């Protein structure tokens, strides 16, 4: 949240700076806008782990394409999938795993082929100071510690269990959280000694959490696919937003939040 506010503040500053010397080239900008740039508004459904990054992506996209509005709707990928299947007015879907996207492809909801736009790895989150002296995945089998996982119904829970299985650890968790952010809240508050979340969540947690890397051999790489949706009322703008996320500039923004290029 802090990051997002900072990002918003930066954008305001940039906008103000632009406003000063805008007079000369505003006519030219208007001309190009009318010629070929998409206008109007779209709604992007994105996994909650993308909240901060996509907030900035949407703001930057709007800045670069005057006259466009990008509305964001964040939630668990599976919940968003259900909403789209039920006919929610979504133009673009960014999922935290491939299975939710595949279900939309099967239901003929996707325009073209989904593309993996970033990856994310798991990381152990511990409260600042690491009161439980957690050193690695072994801690997740320690019944004396307060241990949290995501529920196995959601992607981070599936990946977490895979990583623990790779490490040969039988989890002794005290809670199965509905999503990574909710797990992170309990780590931040110090009620959990360790939780298995995404690398990007640890970064978003700021100073109140510390990250402990999961060894590469045990870790699981989460792939995030992105696609424009066939029910979109503004296919041109939806495609332009997808292109922007995949562009070098979009990838830079995503990397600044800890995501890795695919």
């Amino acid at each position: 949240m802090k990051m997002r506010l900072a990002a918003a503040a930066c954008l305001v500053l940039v906008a103000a700076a632009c406003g000063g010397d805008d007079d000369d080239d505003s006519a030219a900008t208007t001309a190009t806008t009318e010629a070929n740039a998409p206008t109007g508004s779209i709604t992007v459904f994105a996994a909650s782990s993308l909240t901060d990054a996509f907030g900035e992506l949407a703001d930057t996209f709007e800045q670069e394409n005057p006259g466009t509005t990008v509305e964001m709707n964040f939630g668990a990928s599976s919940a968003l999938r259900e909403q789209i299947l039920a006919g929610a007015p979504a133009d673009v879907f960014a999922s935290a795993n491939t299975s939710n996207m595949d279900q939309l492809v099967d239901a003929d909801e996707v325009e073209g082929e989904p593309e993996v736009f970033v990856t994310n790895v798991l990381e152990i989150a511990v409260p600042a100071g690491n009161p439980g002296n957690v050193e690695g995945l072994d801690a997740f089998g320690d019944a004396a510690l307060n241990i949290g996982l995501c529920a196995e119904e959601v992607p981070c829970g599936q990946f977490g269990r895979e990583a623990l299985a790779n490490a040969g650890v039988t989890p002794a968790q005290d809670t199965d959280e509905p999503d990574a952010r909710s797990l992170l809240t309990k780590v931040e508050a110090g009620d959990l000694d360790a939780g298995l979340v995404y690398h990007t969540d640890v970064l978003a947690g700021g100073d109140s959490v510390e990250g402990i890397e999961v060894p590469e051999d045990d870790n699981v790489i989460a792939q995030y696919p992105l696609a424009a949706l066939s029910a979109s009322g503004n296919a041109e703008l939806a495609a332009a937003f997808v292109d922007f996320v995949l562009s070098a500039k979009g990838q830079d923004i995503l990397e600044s939040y800890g995501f890795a290029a695919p």
Partner: protein
Amino acid sequence: MTKARRRPGARPPVVLVPLAALAVAFLVVPFIALLQRVPWSSLAERLSDPLVTQALRLSLTSAFSAMGLSLVFGVPLAWVLARTEFPGRSLLRALVILPMVLPPVVGGAALLFAFGRRGLFGAPLYDRTGFQLPFTIWGVIAANTFVAMPFLVVTVEAGLRSADRRLEDAAATLGAGRWMVFRRVTLPMVAPSVAAGAILCWARALGEFGATVTFAGSLAGRTETMPLAVFLALQTDRDAAIALSLVLVAVSLAVLVPLRDRWLAA
């Protein structure tokens, strides 16, 4: 309460009828839509899953406990708000009904900061006794009570304010002590409000999701109540989620239908 007291043939003003009908349609149509999606053929099998019975037992235990705690602490609070005068009373009322407007997830986080292992009150408790509320059924009950008690307080306070205070005064002039007046006059007078408040409180606690998952976590058999089970089931298996919701609806109706006329139609 009895048939004799009901006014026969009370006919509502014409304008109210279509509006009431629309209200009914709006409130009932979603349930009909839910029923239409129920996977009837596999229902018995899904519901006999021990995870479902565990979650249901946990939900009922915590909702009734929250109701009991709210009665014990909420009725006195309602009395204080309704019958005493002191500076800052409006502020106090606003503060105690805050959980009604607070997003439950925020309420849950606030509970964590107060009663969690490192919380304001939770830390000294944990350091001395090793006891922690989160990840236990006590945490579930605490979260339910936090969110649901204001419903009882508001209802009972309204009842106390509209009760005829002359009866209390009469009892007092006849020599009844303050406790006697409260127990034998005030409480019976506001009994319908107390019942209505308790039922609202129970129903709110039964459906509680956000504060519970944020404060108490979610572990099958320990802290996973029906709403949490429904939410998680919805991630992978919509039919299972609908089957679970149906149980919750059925249980609520089984409790609410017999109660309403008996206690609420004063």
